[in-house]
């Protein structure tokens, strides 16, 4: 990672709520982060903590009509996406920000061949004749290391393996040469060996295009392998963020600490993995103070009544907890 690289995507105090029949779900509740060119930011947290909603808010694709961005800014190369019209957003999507989803089985349209779908995606970006588009599509397949692209072009999605399909999805996602790629658990549905290959492929694509990647996952192994920086989300907020190495070595937020402790390790054999007691709070009805307080073993009265400020705890390392000793940001 390159600290001096320009910031491509900056999310400032983003609040995205879902207005459901049962009340307001505060899925994203004050999230801020910045993403530099060529950098990978891992967004981790347990299910339902708002990771995916954060990704969708950036693209302004919250589930309609329930989802709405109520506050905050999403700055893509300085332009605020929150205030853009739908027509303007359509030009942003695919060309400047793209996304890969979890399940390759349903990410491709089953009634078209791989070639047709690539051409379709390319057609939205280039004004070109059919043969030229087909050529570009083949080229795109070759770049994601699909063997025999000429033949694969004519294959239907069901004739390919999951890993192969996810490669094609990747090829489609970067077809528009976006600046930012949001990868929402792209390897969860793949088996472990294929995961590794796919991650290597993503890294390679990133190195080639200086793509900034927002990597949403709950797998710390993948974070360690892929991400330059990590942001840990809990109940709609980022509780700790920092360089991967620093955060792994010295987690400062009790939640991060507990998460780390519950990751199985090869070297230590334990009877039972430590787990975090209790359940994450319902996003309908959040506690007034720190959201982790009910499950936190260090929590005191202040934690239960006041939300802690986000304080610097190291080089580009921040945590939102009353317990942390703020250290002056030393750059």
């Amino acid at each position, binding site marked *: 990672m390159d600290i001096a690289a320009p910031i491509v995507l900056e999310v400032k105090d983003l609040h995205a709520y879902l207005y459901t029949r049962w009340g307001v779900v505060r899925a994203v509740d004050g999230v801020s982060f910045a993403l530099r060119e060529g950098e990978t930011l891992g967004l981790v947290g347990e299910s339902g903590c708002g990771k995916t909603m954060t990704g969708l808010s950036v*693209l302004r*694709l919250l589930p309609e*009509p329930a989802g709405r961005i109520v506050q905050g800014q999403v700055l893509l190369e300085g332009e605020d996406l929150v205030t853009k019209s739908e027509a303007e*957003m*359509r*030009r*942003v*999507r*695919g*060309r400047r920000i*793209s*996304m890969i*989803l*979890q*399940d390759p089985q*349903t*990410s*491709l*349209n*089953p*009634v*078209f061949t791989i070639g047709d779908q690539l051409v*379709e*995606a390319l057609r*939205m970006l280039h004004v070109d004749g059919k043969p030229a588009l087909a050529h570009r599509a083949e080229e795109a397949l070759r770049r994601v*290391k*699909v*063997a*025999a692209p000429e*033949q*694969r072009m*004519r*294959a*239907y999605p*069901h*004739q*390919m393996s999951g*890993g*192969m399909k996810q490669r094609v*999805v990747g090829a*489609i*996602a970067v077809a*528009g040469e976006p600046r930012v790629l949001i990868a929402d658990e792209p390897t969860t549905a793949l088996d472990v*060996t*294929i995961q*590794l*290959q796919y991650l*290597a*492929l993503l890294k*390679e694509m990133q190195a080639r295009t200086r793509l900034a990647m927002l990597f949403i996952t709950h797998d710390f192994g993948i974070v360690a392998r892929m991400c330059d920086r990590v942001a840990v989300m809990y109940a709609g907020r980022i509780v700790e963020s920092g360089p991967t190495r620093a955060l792994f070595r010295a987690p400062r937020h009790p939640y991060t600490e507990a998460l780390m402790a519950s990751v199985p390790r090869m070297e230590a054999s334990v009877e039972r993995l430590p787990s975090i007691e209790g359940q994450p709070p319902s996003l309908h009805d959040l506690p007034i103070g720190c959201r982790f307080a009910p499950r936190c073993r260090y929590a005191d009265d202040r934690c239960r009544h006041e939300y802690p400020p986000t304080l610097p705890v190291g080089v580009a390392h921040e945590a939102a907890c009353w317990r942390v000793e703020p250290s002056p940001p030393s750059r």
Partner: protein
Amino acid sequence: MARVEERIEVGMGPSPAAEASARPRSRGDLARLPWVSFFIIVVMVLVAVLAPLVAPHSPTEQSLPDKLRPPAWLEGGSTKHLLGTDVLGRDVLSRLIYGARVSLVVAAAALLAGGGVGLMVGIVSGYLGGRVDSFLMRVVDATLTFPTILIALLLAVSLGQGLQTIAIAITVLIWARFARVVRGEVLAVKARDFVALARVHGCSHVRIMAVHIVPNVLNTFMVLLTLHIGFVIIVEASLSFLGAGIPPPTPSWGQMVADGRSHIASAWWLAVVPGAAIMLVVLAFNLFGDWLRDWLDPRLRQV
């Protein structure tokens, strides 16, 4: 990095099976064509189109001396009237041939209109969801509660008899069936990630409906269409049988059955021949529809 690359290449070698199946439509598919139903449908369409050339007599020409002749293979029959004659001495075969025209035209018109409306309503309703969906589906519910024949009779009486009336009546009755099934299918398709990814790629809602949703519901739609051909033919025949269909002297199958009913004891062929024709054609279309369903599904096509 190089080592990783190597591994990737190894894993991605083209398997011979995948290569073979990447070729679209192999010759084996021909063998699995539903030849019998296909044959019946082709014959019916050809005969209907070429009616003036194929029919041995005029369908409306009366010849009282020749009345109630039995079919050729029965005692008293002649090769002049292969399927016999009716009470007015009209040739049953010729009437059957011209009647096929009526059935086909009504079926085509009603299915095009009703199916088209149903497809659009189903797609819009399923894709947009929410209040639009609730409203459209209540309309569909209401339409589906209409007693088919009663409404058709009502329309036929109020609009006057004729081909258009029947086509309109049937359209009004069947669009809702299409809408309901298509909507269900759209709901399933919409939930899949490729629709979300199409949005990520900057497709508009209209484009997603046209490019991503329609092709995915088209096979269901086609099957529904073929299965409804039989239904439409039967409704048309029923209406004509009840006297609210095609006005005489234009021959129609349902009307022929109705006319033959009173002579069933003495001249059974008058009712049985058109009845058998209706049954055969409906059966043929239904079997064809079944086959089409399998054939249109890329997953079942080349196994």
